[in-house]
């Protein structure tokens, strides 16, 4: 598919801000919605509204089918062996909390260790800290190098018989480097340690294959992958899901309820208490299809070109310090976090905003990583497959202008 045709699927790309064309470079926070997702949402909301799984009437069966089709689509997209390995949640954060709370409280206890990469998002740190407070387990931090690389030898030295789970992003939302999850899984599994992969960015820029990777958990959000907000995915191997206690109690997650006690449904239903976001979940089907097409040849070539151009422009500018450098087998995706000498990230973001450019500034939900690099925050420009080379050039020119305004 050519780039213009791909872009035409995203209505928001044609909007203006402050009278200027919007250049949306905050895709790592949330992606724009394609028309097929908007249409699916509208269709579900206007025609297929009925609560899923419960009723026998016609519309309920259509809504249930849409919801379960999405589960099948996700399972097949990420290479899960069965749709029952897919649990729907409200987002990657909820998925991580589910694992930390359910798996954590059942299988991680006093004296156990949780290995967490230094580059993790707060959502993959705080639930584990909360677990440690409850159970007396402890966290070991897997440090990143100055280039933002995770060293496998260091992982091996961190692993001990007490290591229960290693939590690492497929791609850090700050560093934009693809972590070697296959190797991480091999190393951890050889020591009896599980691996949870936070795929919030990974799902957007790579095609994960959980059966090949062999990871135990893989989580992501729909909204970063073109689907509706409020949709999240937890993949877990079937035997893990079967062994895990429910996270929340409520409707539809039960088998029987008696005053003497309740029994629970099989996974994944066991983890889907209460009315689910069935309208949002239905949009995962068209979203995954757009995601798949975004990685096809023409578009992938454009993404590579944009990535290479921005990487060159930022890394050759002496005023700019880029975090997360490719090399040593680490591939960079078009996600660039950086700081600029003598310029506050907030000032740069405010000025770029008035130029029509949406970027992120601040700690990017990774305060420990900000501390690691000794900064109060960074500026982040994250590109999607619909961003053009001319948008990238406009961004680089505008950044230069913003820096001169602050000099």
């Amino acid at each position, binding site marked *: 598919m050519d780039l213009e045709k791909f872009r035409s699927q995203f209505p928001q790309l044609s909007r203006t801000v402050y009278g200027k064309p919007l250049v949306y470079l905050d895709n790592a926070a949330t992606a724009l919605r394609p028309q097929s997702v908007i249409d699916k949402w509208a269709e579900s909301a206007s025609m297929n509204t009925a609560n899923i799984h419960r009723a026998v009437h016609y519309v309920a069966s259509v809504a249930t089918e849409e919801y379960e089709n999405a589960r099948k689509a996700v399972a097949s997209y990420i290479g899960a062996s069965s749709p029952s390995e897919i649990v729907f949640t409200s987002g990657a954060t909820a998925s991580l909390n589910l694992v930390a709370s359910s798996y954590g409280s059942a299988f991680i206890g006093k004296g156990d260790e949780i290995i967490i990469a230094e580059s993790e998002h707060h959502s993959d740190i705080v639930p584990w800290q909360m677990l440690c407070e409850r159970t007396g387990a402890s966290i070991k931090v897997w440090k990143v190098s100055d280039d933002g690389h995770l060293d496998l030898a260091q992982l091996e030295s961190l692993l001990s018989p007490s290591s229960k789970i290693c939590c690492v992003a497929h791609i850090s939302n700050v560093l934009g480097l693809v972590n070697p999850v296959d190797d991480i899984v091999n190393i951890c599994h050889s020591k009896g340690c599980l691996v949870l992969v936070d795929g919030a960015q990974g799902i957007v820029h790579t095609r994960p294959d959980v059966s090949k990777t062999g990871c135990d958990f893989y989580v992501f959000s729909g909204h970063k992958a073109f689907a509706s907000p409020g949709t999240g995915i937890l993949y877990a191997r079937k035997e893990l899901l079967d062994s895990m206690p429910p996270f929340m109690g409520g409707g539809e997650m039960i088998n029987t309820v008696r005053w003497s006690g309740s029994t629970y449904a099989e996974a994944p239903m066991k983890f889907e208490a209460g009315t689910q976001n069935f309208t949002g979940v239905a949009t995962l089907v068209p979203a995954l299809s757009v995601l798949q097409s975004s990685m096809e040849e023409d578009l992938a070539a454009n993404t590579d070109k944009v990535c290479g151009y921005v990487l060159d422009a930022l890394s050759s500018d002496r005023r700019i310090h880029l975090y997360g450098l490719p090399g040593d087998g680490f591939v960079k995706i078009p996600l660039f976090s950086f700081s600029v000498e003598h310029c506050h990230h907030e000032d740069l973001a405010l000025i770029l905003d008035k130029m029509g450019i949406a970027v992120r500034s*601040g700690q990017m939900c990774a305060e420990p990583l900000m501390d690691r690099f000794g900064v109060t925050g960074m500026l982040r420009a994250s590109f999607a497959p619909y961003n053009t080379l001319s948008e990238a050039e406009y961004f680089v020119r505008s950044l230069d202008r913003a820096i001169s305004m602050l000099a």
Partner: protein
Amino acid sequence: MKTLKEIQNEKVEEFAMFDDWLDKYSYLIELGNTLPPFPESLKTDDRLIKGCQSRVWLDARMEDGSLVFSADSDALITKGIIALLVSVYSGRRPEEIASDDFSFIERLGLRENLSPTRANGLVSMIETIRRMAENNCAK
């Protein structure tokens, strides 16, 4: 001495002279540069205004019945915004500040032109100035 309203009207007019927001930002950056140096020793957590992405310190002291503000920020545009507020409210009696409705902020058009996270910072600055004034009103 000009009334608080007169000073506010002046600031609103001055700010409205710039059509382009980048020019408004340049004006704010210049305004921030006019703030007297803020002693490092005053950059304490209790002077830090909560709710801003950048760090903003505000200090107030009473001089001859008036409240004198000094401020600093590590970001230039934010420093300009706090400088604008300081230029309006510094040297006024606390009763006068406490009874102000702060509506000139709306007339500046600043709030709606800042994203919610930054607008929160602006609200925090205003609330801090108001609270400092209230705390110094004659009992």
